[in-house]
């Protein structure tokens, strides 16, 4: 059954912005899908609102629409492009839900569009809780006792029937949004109504809680002919109860006997056979550790985060094969891309251990609840490959870039045995480290097991690490060094623990990931390190370049850096270099073994890079595209004698070192906000006094404004200094005068002599909101020509002074008619992908050519400020606040967004509108009510906004003071009670869904007990749009006006720009 020749034009729906539960894995899957379709000469129409993706590149699809992912826009695109089919299962839950909605509405049938791959009915059965349960019963596959309910009362009745604890799972939500475990009635009352509201179909599942059972996943695949295979089994180290996205996962499953393994494998294959899946699918099981009883937890009839992990863990390209199946191929007709000689119809077998470790945002959200449950909280993940579990786990831990090298967290050291014994019961992001610490304090394995339910197999492995650590503390005896290396200890840790210098260092050897445990010869250049005598890497004869990736997706360092890394690899290839990429993020395109000539799946730490350099000895390294992770390894590389291509190590340092940077600015005559460097709290207070409040407080050398805060008074300074100093600071803390102006940003490409500025971006919000969290507008709409000239001048001077070769990102603030420089990043930035797409300048490609010595004037795009595009582009941040409890949602200098979307149009208003819609903001129009509570200094400005909203037909609510102020300005305003002022206060009114929009500017300081915080959180939990900047509010008003005018919205194929 070869390709279905009726398929000529396929629409692929992406997954939209990066949010918790839906990250870069769908860029990887979508990119593979598009490539696989193009291989078949099928025309590809791609839709995704996320501009920072590889899949939205002009060379990946034939038509690319960066448009909001909703049914209205998809319909417009379908009508314009007339695809014959849609591939719905590669774009995560977002893509799948949209395709289902289009199908359910009958639109696809009407337009003669076919859904490829798994059929609509199958998807419905797999996704709808009740249908799924019925189906499982029909085919004798056990499910956990559960019931779908659509009211709280039914939820409670059923919970009482099966007994607490129960798990609440909302239907059709991502990463378990709105779910949780209820241990009693009070818990249920909190969780269930919220889950009902968040579910697209207003349903939640109440189920028997099997917390503590083993959680096992299978990635399976089936073709239309009925051939079915398992790609990979995975076992969660954290038993059932923690979302699989928040669990430490090991592949293959480790603790299952063959009987158990075959039982679950058969069940998985029976399920996909009976459901009629055509493509990739994920099946999750709970397995009783004390019997052979198991239960099916869920089935995802699409590629997923787990399938990306399984692909990277085995080498089997699931998304690619799923796509080929969708266009008609059978598994036995598709070649195994890794061996090149065998077929995709087989089950990969591996000869190493893979550990996935989640990357949580709690280092940024220090006040967030760290508890883990059924709702995913991680923003990204790392994967590590080794031949032992211990070494893989150690590698994974250091890949997180949290400074963890031997499973020890310094703040846990202080805990005594009793405290640790209690802490073992707490399921949070630090549990594995608590377990290790408990072992250090000699708590018995049996006690740890009974508290955590983690299988003793894993606990003994951890114990092995801890015991080896203790042995090392007694000095490096014979054989101990080799033993420690096998368990994944780095030399730095070994030396620190033993207090001895290692005499003969061992260097890593590299083994291949080949899908077949060496049974067949494999050509895919996909490596991992271990400490063995034999290495399989081949030297290669060409000039080679090492490209460092950007590690796990985290707030402040997202998919955009993977975009840049991948592009730099492509550009290097074009220039004839052999490319080597090192990265540890399993979700990304950069870690597809097809991307570079060689892929090293390794932690991005100095020692791991040292081993790699030792065997590969690259002619140079490219660090400027891998975000702060790669930049942070510049010194390591240059100490190893590797040439840093592009901007030199010295100049990278000059941009980050306060004193050196100040000198450069002084020399160039460029002003910057006055500032001081301090170490202690007292110094900070003094500096603040001298500069005058407000001041910006931040550590140097940070990412995404980590730990950065605006202090309005001494109290704030004391509090922030205390938080910053919780982590030992090697560099001074910066206190800067905070200028309340407008921020402007540029990315420029420099060749050492000339520079090219593709475009200037202006932030919609005034300074103080982190650039990653502000709405960014290209080209600037309010910036006078003379200031643009100044910006070009300053950019040129700075680039020259810093001898930038390659990319540089500079942030400015316009304050009192003067341009100040805030920050210079001598590397690629978050805005590079979108500016590249809108201006049509291949920025990474040009930057790389400059890095290799070419000159801009020969590259065809000219120099200086590039001509403005006819198109306006508005980048809008996207947050994941509903997944993170107790996180302050008001925007500030510390970045909080997880992803971004783009609105593109020739008309600015339309671009803004599309951007806001794409971000998921529910813009209220008819019969809407707005609640406005602002700080005193904002009252006049807020009155104007209130007035406009009122004129647009909004009912305006405000608390007494604000209301009086509005009324005095002639705005008809209703007064609401402040929190606690009586019954039916603000929170009650919100709960009763009285408001469709909340505008709230936070009061000074960061004390979470404040009313504003409670209100903002409640808004997030109730999905009421809450704007915390008046500038954003003004933009939303523009959109409301636009929507009221019923203007037709255009769509843009960016390949035509």
């Amino acid at each position, binding site marked *: 059954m070869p390709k279905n020749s009726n398929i000529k034009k396929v629409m692929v729906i992406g997954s939209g912005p990066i949010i918790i539960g839906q990250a870069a894995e769908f860029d990887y899957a979508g990119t593979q899908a598009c490539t696989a379709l193009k291989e078949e000469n099928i025309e590809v129409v791609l839709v995704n609102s996320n501009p920072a993706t590889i899949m939205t590149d002009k060379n990946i699809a034939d038509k690319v629409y960066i448009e909001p992912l909703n049914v209205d826009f998809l319909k417009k695109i379908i009508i314009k492009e007339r695809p014959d089919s849609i591939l719905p299962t590669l774009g995560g839950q977002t893509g799948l839900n949209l395709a289902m909605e289009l199908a359910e509405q009958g639109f696809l049938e009407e337009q003669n569009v076919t859904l490829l791959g798994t059929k609509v009915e199958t998807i419905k059965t797999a996704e709808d809780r009740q249908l799924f349960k019925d189906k499982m019963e029909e085919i004798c596959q056990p499910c956990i006792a559960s019931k779908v309910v659509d009211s709280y009362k039914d939820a409670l009745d059923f919970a009482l029937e099966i007994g607490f604890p129960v798990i609440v799972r909302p239907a059709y939500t991502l990463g378990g949004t709105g779910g949780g475990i209820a241990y009693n009635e009070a818990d249920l009352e909190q969780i269930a109504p919220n889950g009902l509201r968040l579910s697209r179909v207003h349903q939640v599942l109440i189920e028997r809680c099997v917390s503590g059972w083993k959680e096992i996943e299978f990635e399976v695949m089936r073709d239309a002919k009925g051939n079915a295979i398992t790609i990979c089994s995975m076992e969660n180290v954290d038993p059932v109860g923690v979302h699989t996205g928040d669990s430490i996962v090991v592949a293959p499953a480790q603790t299952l006997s063959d009987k158990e393994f075959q039982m679950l494998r058969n069940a998985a294959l029976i399920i996909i*056979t009976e459901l009629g899946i055509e493509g990739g699918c994920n099946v999750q099981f709970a397995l009783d550790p004390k019997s052979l009883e198991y239960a099916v937890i869920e089935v995802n009839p699409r590629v997923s985060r787990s399938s990306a992990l399984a692909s990277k863990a085995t080498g089997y390209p699931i998304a690619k094969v799923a796509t080929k199946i969708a266009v008609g191929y059978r598994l036995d007709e598709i070649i195994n891309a890794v061996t090149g000689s065998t077929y995709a119809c087989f089950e990969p*077998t591996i000869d190493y251990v893979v550990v996935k470790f989640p990357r949580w945002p709690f280092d940024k959200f220090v006040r967030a609840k760290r508890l883990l449950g059924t709702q995913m909280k991680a923003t990204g993940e790392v994967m590590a490959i080794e*031949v032992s579990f211990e070494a893989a786990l150690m590698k994974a831990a250091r890949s997180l870039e949290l400074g963890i090298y031997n499973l020890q967290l310094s703040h846990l050291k202080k805990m005594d045995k009793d405290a640790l014994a209690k802490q073992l019961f707490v399921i949070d992001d630090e549990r594995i480290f608590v377990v290790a610490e408990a072992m250090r304090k000699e708590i018995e394995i049996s006690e740890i097991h009974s508290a955590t339910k983690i299988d003793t197999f894993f606990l003994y492995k951890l114990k092995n690490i801890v015991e080896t650590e203790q042995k090392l503390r007694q000095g490096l005896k014979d054989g101990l060094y080799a033993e420690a290396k096998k368990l994944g200890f780095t030399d730095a840790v070994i030396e620190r623990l033993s207090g001895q210098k290692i005499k003969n260092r061992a260097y890593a050897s590299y083994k291949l990931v080949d899908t077949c445990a060496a*049974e067949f010869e494999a050509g895919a250049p996909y490596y991992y390190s271990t400490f063995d005598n034999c290495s399989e890497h081949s030297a290669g004869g060409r000039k080679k370049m090492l490209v460092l990736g950007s590690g796990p997706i985290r707030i402040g360092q997202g998919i955009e850096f993977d975009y840049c890394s991948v592009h730099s690899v492509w550009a290097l290839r074009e220039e004839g270099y052999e490319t080597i990429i090192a990265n540890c993020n399993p979700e990304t395109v950069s870690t597809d073994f097809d991307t570079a000539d060689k892929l090293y799946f390794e932690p991005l730490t100095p020692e791991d890079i040292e081993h790699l350099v030792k065997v590969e000895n690259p002619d140079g390294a490219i660090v400027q595209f891998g975000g702060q992770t790669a930049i942070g390894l510049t010194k390591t590389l240059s100490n190893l004698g590797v040439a840093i291509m592009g901007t030199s190590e010295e100049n990278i340092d000059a941009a980050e070192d306060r004193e050196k940077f100040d000198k450069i600015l002084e020399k160039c005559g460029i002003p910057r906000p006055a500032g001081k460097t301090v170490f202690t709290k007292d110094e900070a207070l003094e500096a603040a006094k001298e500069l005058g409040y407000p001041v910006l407080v931040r550590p140097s050398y940070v990412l995404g404004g980590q730990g950065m805060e605006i202090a309005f008074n001494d109290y704030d300074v004391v509090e922030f200094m205390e938080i910053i100093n919780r982590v030992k600071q090697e560099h001074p803390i910066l206190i800067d005068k905070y200028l309340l102006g407008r921020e402007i940003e540029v990315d420029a490409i420099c060749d050492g002599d000339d520079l090219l500025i593709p475009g200037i971006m202006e932030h919609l919000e005034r300074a103080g909101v982190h650039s990653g969290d502000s709405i960014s507008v290209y080209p600037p709409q309010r910036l006078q020509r003379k200031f643009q000239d100044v910006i070009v001048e300053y950019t040129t001077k700075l680039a020259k002074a810093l001898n930038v070769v390659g990319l540089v990102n500079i942030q400015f603030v316009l304050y009192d008619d003067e341009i100040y420089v805030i920050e210079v990043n001598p590397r690629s930035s978050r805005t590079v992908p979108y500016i590249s797409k809108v201006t049509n300048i291949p920025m990474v490609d040009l930057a790389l050519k400059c890095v290799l010595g070419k000159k801009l004037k020969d590259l065809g795009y000219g120099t200086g400020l590039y001509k403005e595009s006819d198109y306006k582009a508005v980048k809008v941040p996207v947050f994941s606040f509903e997944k993170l409890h107790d996180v302050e949602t008001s925007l500030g200098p510390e970045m909080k967004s997880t992803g971004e979307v783009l609105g593109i149009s020739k008309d600015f208003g339309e671009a803004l509108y599309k951007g806001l819609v794409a971000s998921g903001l529910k813009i209220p129009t008819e019969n809407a009510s707005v609640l406005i509570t602002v700080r005193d200094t904002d009252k006049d400005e807020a009155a104007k906004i209130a007035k406009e909203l009122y004129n647009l037909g909004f009912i305006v609510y405000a608390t007494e003071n604000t209301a009086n102020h509005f009324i005095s300005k002639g705005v008809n305003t209703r007064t609401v009670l402040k929190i606690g002022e009586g019954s039916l206060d603000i929170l009650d009114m919100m709960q009763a869904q009285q408001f469709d929009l909340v505008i709230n500017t936070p009061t000074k300081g960061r004390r979470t007990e404040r009313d504003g915080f409670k209100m903002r959180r409640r808004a997030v939990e109730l999905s009421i749009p809450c704007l915390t900047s008046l500038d954003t509010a003004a933009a939303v008003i523009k959109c409301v006006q636009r929507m009221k005018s019923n203007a037709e919205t255009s769509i843009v194929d960016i390949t035509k720009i």
Partner: protein
Amino acid sequence: MKAFLVLDDGTIFEGISAGAQGTAIGEIVFNTSMTGYQEIITDPSNWGQIVLMTYPLIGNYGINDQDGESGKAQAGGLIVRELCKEPSNHRMTQPLGDYLKESGIVAIEGIDTRQLTKEIRKRGVVKGAITTDCDFDVKRIDENKVTDAVRAVTCKKQYQVGCDTAKYNVALIDLGTKKSVITTLTEFECKVTVMPAYTAPKTIIEGGFDGVVLSGGPGNPKECNEIIENIKELQKTGIPIFGIGLGHLLMALASGFDTERMANAHNGANYPVVRAENGASHITVQNHKYVVLSKSVDKEKADITHYNLNDNSVEGIGYKKFAAFSVQFYPGKLLQPFDTGYLFLEFVKYMKAYKKS
């Protein structure tokens, strides 16, 4: 305690003893299954061979008293990268290391199993020894010859499995059968009489059986002349025959086809086999190094019913002149389209027809 792995070319790897003390000599075969070490060690087809597990962590769930494929450890020796010292499973009765010691199986851990696997892939046949003896003489490897493997593993006396009221009465010629094959037959309503490999054909023919299963087993099929002759006798009677593994090879030889040693053996749980009849692919468990030569299969007498998707080797033969078929792989037991349980059903159909006539 130290142990050494010595290859026939004199290469020596040092590791740690993971089983009994002493010396095990034999051909080294690698197995790519990630689970099922207990089944593999106790599979009589592995008799006399040193088994190398390509998955690095072995012994994770220990050994239990239910999952053995025969009453004892059969493999000549075991090579692993890491033997689990603290296994965990609710059905476990003892750790693998203890079991190996008790069973007298010499084993070694701490070996770069991937490197060794590649060596075997390149060389095809690699013999070697695992030894705890520091003065081991490499010449002993060449001197070691495995003969009469079937005689070593077959049951000494016939015995019965399954209830008397079962629909079909099956004779299983034990060439080194796996217990699970017998169990599966009982699940397909068969009473199974397991008979020693060298049982006279007359005993079988007169035993009132509805069908004969030729089981899997170890060794070179061409050494089993007596059994091949016996099979010829059985073939003449028209009794349904189902050959598995070695049984499949012997059926082919009894039919005048030829077998050969493969360049690379098939030992693992992930081999794709295509069923010629409908083009369906199945993932199968295999454990063989001899194969039927496809060009030797006389189209007059038989069809190749199954072939390996990757190397096109013969995986199944259907005979035209009598009710018999055979497969090289271990048949699965599920009647699902992705599994090969239909083979048992097919066999049952043959028996049903045979009973009627």
